[in-house]
C-alpha cells in the first residue's frame, strides 16, 4: 500500500474519531440534563478523540518512514555473498544504487551478477513487507487510540485542559522549528567558512584589497592564483546601499509625512496603495529597468557633461534600488505617524504650533522607533538585494568610491561563485560561504546598533 493512500485512510479515521467523540459526549450528557453538565464542551471531547487517534499513529508512521530504508539496506547488503560485500562507503553506495536500479526495473537483470539480481529481489520483497506492516500497525494504532478515547469520555474528564496542553506543545514546536532552522543555516555557513579559512588566511580575506577568485584547476594552468580580498565587495555593497538609502529615506519619509499629515483622505486612499504597488514589482523587473533604461540614461547624461560613465554603474543600480525601497520606508513610516495619538497633535496645535512644527517636534520623535524600523528594513534589503545589482552594477570588483564606475557586491559574487559547475572543496566555491557569513554578521550588527539607538532616543507616548 502507498503511503499516500495510508494517509488518506488515516485522515478519514481521524474525522470519524472526531465525530464519534462528539456524539459520545452528547450521549453522556443527555441523561445528566444537557451539555452544561459536562466538564468540557463536546467539541473538546471530539478533539481529544481525534488527537488520540492521530498522534500515536502519526508518530509511528513518521518514525517508520525515517528508519525503514536504513534497516532494509542493511538487510539487503547482508544477503550478498561475502565476495561481493562492498569494502568502503563509496563502493557501498554504488552497490546500493545498482541494486536499486535492478529492483525498479531500470537495469535489466542480465547486466548484473546473479547475486545482485537476488539482492534486488530481496529488496523488493522487503519493501512490500515493510509497507504492508506499516499500514497495519498504523491503522491498528489509530483504531486503538480512537477507541480508547471514545471509551474514556465521561462527564468529569478534563478534555479541554488536555486538548489545550497538546495545542500548546504544537505551538511550541512551530516556534522551535523557526529557531532551529535559523541556527542550522548559520552553522552550515559557519562550517563551510571555517573550511575556507583553512585554505585562505582570514586576514587576507578581511583586509585584502584584491578580489579575483580564479583558481588554477590543473597544476600547469596559466591562471591567477586567486585573490580573496573581500574589501572591494564590501565597499561596493556599501556604496550601492548608501546610494539606495539616500534616495529611499528622504523620498519615503517625506511622502509618508505628506500622506499622513497633509493629504486629503481621498488622495491618501488612492496614493498609499499605489505606492505599495512598487513593493510588489519583482526585483528582476527593476533589474532590467536599471540595466536597460536607467544605466544608459546616466551614461548619456554623463557623456554630455564630459564625464566618463561605465555602462554598468553603481549609480544606476543604487538609484533603482532606492526606488524599490521607497514603499518600505513610506508605508511603515506612514503607519507609525498615523498611530501617534490625536491628543499629541491637539496639544501641540493648541499651543499655537504650526503643522510643520508639530510634525518636527512632536510627531516625528514619537514615531521615531517605527521610522527607524522601516529604514532598517530598507537597509537590510539594500545590502541583501541581488538581482538589480547583478543586472545593473556589473561584476568587476573595483575598489572605488566613484558611483559612476562599475562595482560589484557581496551578493553578486555569491551568485557567480555558486552558479555553474562547482567543486565543493575549492577555495573558490567555499569563498561564497565566507561571504555569506560576513553578510549575515553585518546585518546582525546593524540590527543591534539600530535597536540600541531606537531604545535610547525614543520618546514613548502612552
Amino acid at each position, binding site marked *: 500500500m502507498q503511503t499516500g493512500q495510508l494517509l488518506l485512510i488515516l485522515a478519514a479515521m481521524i474525522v470519524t474519531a472526531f465525530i464519534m467523540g462528539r456524539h459520545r459526549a452528547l450521549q453522556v450528557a443527555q441523561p445528566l440534563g444537557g451539555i452544561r453538565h459536562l466538564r468540557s464542551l463536546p467539541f473538546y471531547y471530539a478533539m481529544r478523540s481525534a488527537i488520540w487517534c492521530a498522534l500515536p499513529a502519526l508518530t509511528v508512521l513518521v518514525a517508520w518512514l525515517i528508519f525503514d530504508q536504513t534497516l532494509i539496506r542493511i538487510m539487503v547488503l547482508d544477503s550478498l555473498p561475502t565476495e561481493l560485500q562492498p569494502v568502503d562507503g563509496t563502493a557501498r553506495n554504488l552497490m546500493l544504487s545498482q541494486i536499486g536500479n535492478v529492483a525498479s526495473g531500470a537495469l535489466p537483470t542480465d547486466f548484473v551478477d546473479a547475486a545482485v539480481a537476488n539482492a534486488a529481489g530481496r529488496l523488493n520483497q522487503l519493501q512490500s513487507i515493510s509497507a504492508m506492516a506499516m499500514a497495519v500497525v498504523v491503522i491498528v494504532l489509530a483504531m486503538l487510540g480512537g477507541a480508547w478515547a471514545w471509551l474514556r469520555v465521561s462527564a468529569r474528564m478534563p478534555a479541554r485542559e488536555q486538548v489545550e496542553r497538546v495545542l500548546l506543545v504544537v505551538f511550541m514546536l512551530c516556534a522551535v522549528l523557526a529557531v532551529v532552522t535559523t541556527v542550522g543555516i548559520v552553522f552550515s555557513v559557519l562550517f563551510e567558512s571555517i573550511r575556507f579559512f583553512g585554505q585562505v588566511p582570514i586576514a587576507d580575506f578581511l583586509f585584502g584589497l584584491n578580489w579575483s577568485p580564479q583558481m588554477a584547476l590543473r597544476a600547469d594552468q596559466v591562471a591567477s592564483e586567486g585573490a580573496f580580498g573581500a574589501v572591494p565587495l564590501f565597499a561596493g555593497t556599501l556604496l550601492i546601499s548608501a546610494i539606495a538609502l539616500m534616495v529611499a529615506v528622504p523620498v519615503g519619509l517625506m511622502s509618508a509625512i505628506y500622506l499622513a499629515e497633509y493629504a486629503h483622505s481621498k488622495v491618501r486612499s488612492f496614493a498609499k496603495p499605489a505606492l505599495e504597488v512598487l513593493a510588489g514589482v519583482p526585483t528582476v523587473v527593476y533589474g532590467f529597468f536599471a540595466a536597460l533604461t536607467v544605466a544608459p540614461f546616466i551614461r548619456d547624461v554623463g557623456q554630455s557633461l564630459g564625464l566618463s560613465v561605465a555602462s554598468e554603474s553603481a549609480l544606476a543600480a543604487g538609484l533603482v534600488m532606492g526606488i524599490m525601497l521607497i514603499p518600505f520606508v513610506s508605508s511603515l513610516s506612514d503607519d507609525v505617524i498615523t498611530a501617534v495619538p490625536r491628543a499629541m497633535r491637539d496639544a501641540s*496645535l493648541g499651543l499655537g504650533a504650526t503643522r510643520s512644527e508639530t510634525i518636527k517636534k512632536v510627531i516625528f520623535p514619537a514615531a521615531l522607533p517605527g521610522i527607524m524600523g522601516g529604514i532598517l528594513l530598507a537597509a537590510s534589503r539594500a545590502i541583501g538585494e541581488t538581482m538589480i545589482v547583478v543586472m545593473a552594477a556589473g561584476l568587476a570588483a573595483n575598489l572605488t568610491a566613484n558611483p559612476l564606475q562599475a562595482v560589484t557586491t557581496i551578493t553578486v559574487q555569491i551568485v557567480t561563485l555558486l552558479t555553474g559547475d562547482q567543486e565543493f572543496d575549492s577555495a573558490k566555491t567555499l569563498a561564497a560561504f565566507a561571504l555569506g557569513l560576513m553578510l549575515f554578521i553585518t546585518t546582525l550588527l546593524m540590527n543591534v546598533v539600530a535597536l540600541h539607538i531606537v531604545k535610547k532616543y525614543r*520618546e514613548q507616548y502612552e
Partner: protein
Amino acid sequence: MDIAEKMNVFQDAVQVDPRVVAQEHMMTEENLYIPEKTVGAPFVDDPKMRMRDVNVFYDTDQAIHGVSLDIGKNEVVALIGPSGCGKSTFLRCMNRMNDTIDICRVEGSLHLENQDIYDPKLDVVELRARVGMVFQKPNPFPKSIYDNVAYGPRIHGLANRKTDLDEIVENSLRKAGLWDEVKDRLDSPGTGLSGGQQQRLCIARTIAVSPEVVLMDEPCSALDPIATAKIEELIRELSESYTIAIVTHSMQQAARVSQRTAYFHLGWLVEMNDTDTVFTKPQHELTESYITGRFG
C-alpha cells in the same frame, strides 16, 4: 483622519430634530421647549470674548444652533449640559481647534476683544498663543517636564536666553502648583507623572505662553477626587490673571469654580446667568430638570 476619529467627533454632534428629542426626554413634563432666546443674562459689559449667532456644522449635521454669549475679563465661565449638547464643540471654536477637523464648519461672529477670530487674514498661531487650551485627558508630550513647559515659549520665540527660558518654566510650574513636586526632576519624562500632576503640567505648559484666555475641556474628568480638588483650587487662583472657560460634567465643580454658568442643551444655549442664580433659581425648566438630576 480616520473613520474612528470622525465618529468621535460626530458623537458631540449627533442631531435629530432637537425639539422633538427634547420632548421625548421629558414625556411627562409640559412646556419644556427650548426657548427662542437664551434665558438669563448671557451678555456682559466690555467682554473679553464676544460670540454672536454661532452655528457649527459637521458636514450637514448642525451641532451648535445660534449661540450668543459673552465671556467677561478675568471671569471663570462654566459650560454645562448633558452629553452631546455641543459644549466642547463650542469651546473648540474659540481657539479654532475645530479647524483640524475637515468636515467642521463654523458660522457667526466670534471676537477676542476687537479681533475677529475667524478673520481669514488672522494668524491662527497667534490666536492660539492668546487663547490656550487644556484638554480632557492629560496629554503631556513624551518629553522631559522641562521641555514640555518650554515647548510653547520655544516655538513662539519668547525667550532669548536659556536663563529667560528657565525663568518662564519655573514661573509656569509655580503657577500650576507643580514646582515643588518636580523641581528636582525636570529632566525626567512628563509621562512618568501621576494623572493629576500630568494635568497640572499641561496647565503649566498652556500658561507658559502667557495666554489671555484659557479654555478647559473637562480638565478633571480623568482624575481622582484629590487631584480634582487641586486643579479646582488652581483654576480659582488662575482666574486672577486669566480669563477661563471651562466645560464640565460636574455641576458641583461648576458651582465651585465659576462666576457664571451657561447651560447647553442639544446645541442650544438655554440659559446663562450668575452661577448662584443658575443653581439656586434656574429660570428655565430644562435647566432646572438638569441641575436637579432629572436627566444628564
